[in-house]
């Protein structure tokens, strides 16, 4: 997901912590000024931060096609979509700031590799059909996780999710619309569409993270309601939803062992290659170095702008004080 393998700090056993857990169990929302266990705060900062970074780095693979969009309308839609992602990053950084960490601190941790972003954005976008596949599959997978997070226990995070989900479902529809055009288009367009599905299928399944049925981190995060479903539940739901859509498009899911089971009401599918996933997380995905280099370049090249605007704001403030 946009937050993968988030390490959860353990809960303590103080009376405050027990009362806190009782509030969560009653379905109350935790707000920034409320008491919260240190572990809850730290885990949330990691999770929301990783989610925010994913939005910002996630601008890059789609941004890669803005200047090559095939029509004025497609260009406007794609630009608006990538702009929405910047907006999502902004809401999420604001939500994280309510926990006592600044946006600049989080940014520094992304840029020097201390914090992660979703593995999916380390894959390249090679044809226009990838703009369809990213919307259809990547945003589709993201929505699986983000819809339940609208009910997460931390108020600012839940409210950010409500806004984000509205936009994400629009993104997913426009991605599917691109895929429809491509799948029903010329031979070359159909080939691009199938190729995009071939490349993005398994990385999309990886977005949910490895099976977490035995993970202590997940159990704690679920008790705190900052993780709402297991990775396997969400992955299954995604496959069940997406396979019929691929069939509708006339495309083939690249899994020869994919099978529908009447008795379970679910598809059986091949797991992605988890060693590839771990490689990507360690920095060895096809685009990790390029993505981080692009973010670092934007940040470093922009330093004089941020400093200049701050200096001007200080001068204006000083002049105002002097005038009073």
């Amino acid at each position, binding site marked *: 997901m946009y937050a993968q393998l988030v390490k959860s700090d353990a809960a303590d056993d103080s009376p405050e912590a027990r009362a806190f857990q009782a509030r969560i169990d009653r379905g109350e929302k935790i707000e920034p000024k409320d008491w919260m266990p240190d572990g809850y705060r730290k885990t949330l900062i990691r999770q929301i931060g990783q989610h925010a970074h994913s939005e910002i780095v996630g601008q890059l693979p789609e941004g890669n096609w803005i200047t090559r969009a095939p029509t004025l309308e497609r260009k406007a839609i794609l630009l608006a979509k990538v*702009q929405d992602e910047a907006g999502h990053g902004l809401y999420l950084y604001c939500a994280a700031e309510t926990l006592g960490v600044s946006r600049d601190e989080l940014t520094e941790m992304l840029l020097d590799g201390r914090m992660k972003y979703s593995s999916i954005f380390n894959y390249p976008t090679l044809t226009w059909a990838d703009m369809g596949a990213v919307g259809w599959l990547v945003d589709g997978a993201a929505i699986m996780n983000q819809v339940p997070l609208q009910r997460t226990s931390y108020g600012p995070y839940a409210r950010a999710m409500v806004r984000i989900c509205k936009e994400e479902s629009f993104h997913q529809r426009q991605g599917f619309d691109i895929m429809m055009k491509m799948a029903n288009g010329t031979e070359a367009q159909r080939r691009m569409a199938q190729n995009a599905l071939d490349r993005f299928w398994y990385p999309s399944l990886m977005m949910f993270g490895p099976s977490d049925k035995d993970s202590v981190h997940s159990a704690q995060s679920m008790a705190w309601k900052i993780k709402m479903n297991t990775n396997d539940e969400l992955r299954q739901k995604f496959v069940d939803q997406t396979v019929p859509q691929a069939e509708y498009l006339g495309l083939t899911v690249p899994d020869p062992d994919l099978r529908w089971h009447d008795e379970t009401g679910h598809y059986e599918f091949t797991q992605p290659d988890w060693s590839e996933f771990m490689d990507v997380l360690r920095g060895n995905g096809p685009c990790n170095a390029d993505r981080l280099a692009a973010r670092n370049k934007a940040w470093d*090249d922009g330093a004089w*702008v941020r400093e200049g605007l701050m200096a001007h704001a200080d001068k204006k403030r000083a002049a105002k004080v002097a005038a009073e």
Partner: protein
Amino acid sequence: MSDLFTFLTRMGDNTLVLGHRLSEWCGHAPVLEEDIALANTALDLIGQTQMWLGLAAQVEGAGRSADDLAMLRDAWDFRNLLLVERPNGDFGATIMRQCLFDRFHLLLLDALTHSTDTRIAAIAAKAVKEVRYHADRSAELVIGLGDGTAESHTRMQTALDALWPYVGEMFTDDATDTAMAAAGIAPLPSTLRAAWDTQMTDILTQATLTRPDGDFAHQGGKNGAQHSEHLGHMLSQMQWLQRAYPGATW
């Protein structure tokens, strides 16, 4: 080619080329808020392009669409100003280019809201609201960065000096402009210069920047006689899919 068609492609090509340039920043701006604001401006300009080139195609009556005009003309048929095809450079150069153009664009659109051609007046009425915001924003940034740190000041002065030779083309008049003015469709560009000078002097003064002395003006964009080398590279990206896969719908 009719003067009206030429005039409309000038409007639409300016917004197309500048919108494209701004869209190159998406994901790479110095701060998140600026990333969003640049994308907003680019989106407005692309939307205006659809209206201007849509009307140009309709006026031409040759069965071409706005997309055909954007994606299937070669550089010599583009009628945008040389200023807007300048490469982005650093953020300062991008914002300075924007400020110089926005002031001209705003004055022009304001006048076009009174055009005798009601289709043009309607497009201008919609666009002018967006461009008023663009002009406020770019002026604010030029002032903030000009009057910021020593480094930001130097960068903004460098950008202004480099772009100044591209200012004059905005205010040149040719036969198309004279025909448009005679029909009450559009103002003569030269008549916008005095107001532009007054506004720009005010902005540059607040920004503590020095207006360059020379008045040399590069020509060749709005009449298509001689674009810069940069336009061809932009089009090779922008038009690539339509050129590589002719006849496909997207």
